[in-house]
């Protein structure tokens, strides 16, 4: 392979990206060296097994990916604003919508939510860490390396261009001969390991690590939604793993699972992809539902309405999520019986979801509402998500779907549910739990500016797309003619997209501004909130709880505060040494080997993939013979820390 085939050449945008990547790396290395921070970075962050730090790293990675995916989105909007635009060529456009979709779902939405779950869930259930802290670090690093492997594709070797669904035969070797599709397969495969491990880890954590006094039906709603999400992850992700492996065999080793010839079944890929893909959308929406429940309950100053109905509706959603996948390809023409069955199961999902919407509304009813930024995101979610949901039911009707399929109507629908569901929740959760993570709040004034601009931009961008879809504009086209009459709505959509970008930039500026100027927290409970994570002091000590808290019902921390008001002060108990897990460098090293193996397989450099896999195996062996059982935090250290923190 020649060097100019290895690096992507010929496009000024890519050269710009090359330069900015190089400058960022040089800058990071310079800053770390100049301030002598390498050792700090390694001992405090890269080797950490602390769920709070891992959560923060997940969120940082997710915000970076949101930036990357957002730039992709704006490039697409720039191309589509006017007819017959020549800003991007067809292939470049294909690459951009492929990476946009893949990055936003797999490398933005999931890690953002998993990051918040990492930070919040152990605190909510009164645990000092997750069940398997080492595994948690492996999860993060495999996700991160998978994401990096996928991301370098646009400067080294070329990006995938067959869509985030990567349907064969388009994604097969004949029609996508480059290495781009291999990046997709290996990047997702490696990141998927991390997600599956997270699923197992948090399932066990929530079931086994709760404070003994907390019953299942007293868990905070975010913890409940995380638990159900983990069950879906455990059952759905193996399907993706298998499907990706089969396509990898097809592309690298000449097998015929999904090929057109020799008995392969191309549509089986679509089938397997959506058996994972539909549960996947519930993986990214259920934690969002959980967050909205917490935030709405806190800022309406009421306990959540219909707790049990909320839990059961999530269980029903989780069960149904595995029975609807064919609605993604009604037009394959599987026949009336198949389409009717999946049409009905799809519409059924609207029932438990509707129950949840009404429960949020009833929680708001007669509440004393405080309009904080986190609350504004949650309130905007309800009407926007309903628009997405109702159009979803329209799409669920198989006969009507033949009309909507592959048009901008669909694009508008899933952006309405994913952005106003997942992205709003990520922002709401970030504002809400930010003081738990960084010991200061995000500025509310900037937060509200960012909120209004983003929400206005979102609706301006995607609402016109419903009408573009009805007017016949197909998705995934890179340009259209002047005679199609789609220009005015496209201009509007691009304007909205720019506003969303501005809203995001204000959020990023807010992070910097608040770091500089926001007053530090003096209490661990800035919002007068209800659940146990707010009972920890500020900053949260690395062992979370000096004494394990007691959960006496729903909203355990609220009950504690009420009891305190009535003068029932908790008795002072002596501290006991706390057992904590040791930090380890093995997870990051193992993941670097995964990356090496993946990179080798992308280019079919088998010596490199074998080297990487041997490295993975070696790190596993090292871990197996590691008898480090963690350490005890001494009573003196606990006393010292508790004096410094403010409660």
């Amino acid at each position, binding site marked *: 392979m020649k060097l100019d085939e290895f690096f992507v050449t010929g496009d000024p945008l890519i050269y710009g990206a090359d330069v900015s990547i190089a400058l960022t790396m040089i800058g990071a290395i310079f800053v770390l060296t100049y301030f002598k921070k390498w050792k700090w970075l390694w001992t405090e962050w890269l080797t950490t097994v602390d769920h709070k730090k891992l959560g923060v790293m997940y969120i940082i990675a997710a915000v970076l990916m949101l930036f990357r995916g957002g730039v992709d989105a704006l490039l697409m909007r720039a191309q589509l604003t006017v007819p017959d635009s020549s800003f991007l060529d067809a292939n470049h456009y294909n690459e951009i919508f492929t990476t946009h979709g893949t990055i936003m779902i797999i490398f933005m939405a999931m890690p953002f939510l998993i990051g918040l779950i990492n930070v919040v869930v152990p605190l909510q259930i009164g645990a000092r860490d997750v069940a398997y802290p080492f595994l948690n670090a492996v999860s993060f690093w495999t996700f991160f390396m998978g994401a990096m492997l996928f991301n370098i594709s646009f400067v080294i070797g070329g990006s995938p261009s067959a869509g985030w669904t990567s349907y064969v035969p388009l994604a097969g070797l004949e029609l996508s001969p480059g290495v781009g599709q291999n990046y997709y397969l290996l990047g997702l495969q490696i990141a998927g390991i991390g997600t599956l491990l997270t699923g197992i880890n948090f399932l066990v954590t929530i079931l086994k690590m709760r404070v003994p006094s907390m019953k299942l039906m007293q868990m905070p709603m975010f913890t409940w939604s995380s638990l159900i999400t983990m069950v879906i992850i455990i059952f759905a992700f193996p399907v993706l793993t298998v499907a990706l492996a089969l396509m990898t065999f097809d592309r690298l080793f000449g097998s015929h699972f999904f090929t057109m010839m020799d008995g392969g079944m191309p549509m089986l890929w679509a089938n397997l992809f959506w058996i994972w893909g539909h549960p996947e959308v519930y993986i990214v929406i259920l934690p969002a539902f959980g967050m909205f429940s917490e935030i709405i309950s806190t800022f309406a100053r009421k306990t959540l309405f219909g707790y049990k109905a909320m839990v059961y509706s999530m269980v029903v959603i989780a069960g149904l999520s*595995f029975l609807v996948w*064919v609605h993604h390809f009604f037009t394959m023409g599987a026949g009336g019986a*198949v389409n009717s069955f999946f049409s009905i199961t799809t519409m059924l999902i609207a029932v438990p979801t509707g129950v949840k919407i009404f429960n949020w509304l009833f929680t708001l009813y007669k509440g004393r509402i405080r309009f904080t930024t986190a609350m504004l995101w949650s309130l905007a979610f309800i009407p926007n998500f309903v628009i997405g949901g109702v159009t979803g039911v329209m799409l669920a009707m198989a006969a009507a779907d033949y009309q909507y399929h592959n048009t901008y109507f669909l694009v508008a629908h899933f952006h309405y549910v994913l952005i106003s569901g997942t992205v709003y929740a990520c922002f709401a959760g970030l504002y809400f739990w930010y003081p738990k993570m960084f010991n200061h709040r995000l500025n509310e004034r900037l937060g509200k500016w960012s909120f209004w601009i983003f929400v206005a931009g979102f609706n301006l961008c995607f609402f016109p797309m419903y009408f573009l879809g009805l007017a016949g504009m197909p998705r995934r086209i890179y340009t259209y003619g002047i005679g199609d009459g789609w220009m005015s709505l496209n201009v509007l959509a691009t304007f909205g997209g720019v506003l969303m970008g501005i809203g995001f930039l204000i959020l990023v500026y807010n992070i910097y501004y608040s770091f500089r100027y926001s007053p530090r927290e003096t209490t661990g409970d800035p919002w007068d909130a209800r659940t146990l994570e707010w009972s920890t002091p500020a900053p949260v000590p690395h062992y979370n709880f000096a004494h394990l808290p007691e959960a006496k019902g729903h909203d355990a921390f609220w009950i504690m505060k009420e009891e305190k008001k009535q003068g029932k002060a908790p008795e002072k108990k002596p501290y006991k040494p706390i*057992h904590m897990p040791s930090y380890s460098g093995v997870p990051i090293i193992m993941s670097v080997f995964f990356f090496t193996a993946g990179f080798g397989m992308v280019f079919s450099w088998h010596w490199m993939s074998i080297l990487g896999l041997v490295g993975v195996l070696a790190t596993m062996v090292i871990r197996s013979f590691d008898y480090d059982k963690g350490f005890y935090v001494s009573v003196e250290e606990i006393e010292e820390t508790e004096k410094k923190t403010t409660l």
Partner: protein
Amino acid sequence: MSNNEQTNSHSHFPWSHLIGFGLSIVLTLLALWVGFASDFSFRTIMIIVVILALIQAAIQLLMFMHITESDSSRIQVGTILYAVFIAVAIVAGTIWVMSFGMHNMNM
């Protein structure tokens, strides 16, 4: 916290894991041999491979997944039932969806 004592249940040699690992490899090789090198009819091959797969799944559950080590059988039964439900939904659903319209194809 209850995990203060990291119990020493793992300090003995993991024989059951090793046996399970060995059996899994043997069963997989057997399936490969039946599939590629035996003279059985297609139907017999399919039956043998499915039986081998079920045996292997049972070995995995017993040797690696600690299915007998829980004190609450209610959770175990619930999990297994849910897993069976998902497996049947995926496999039967896929066959149903993918076989429809096959008569239109030259296969």
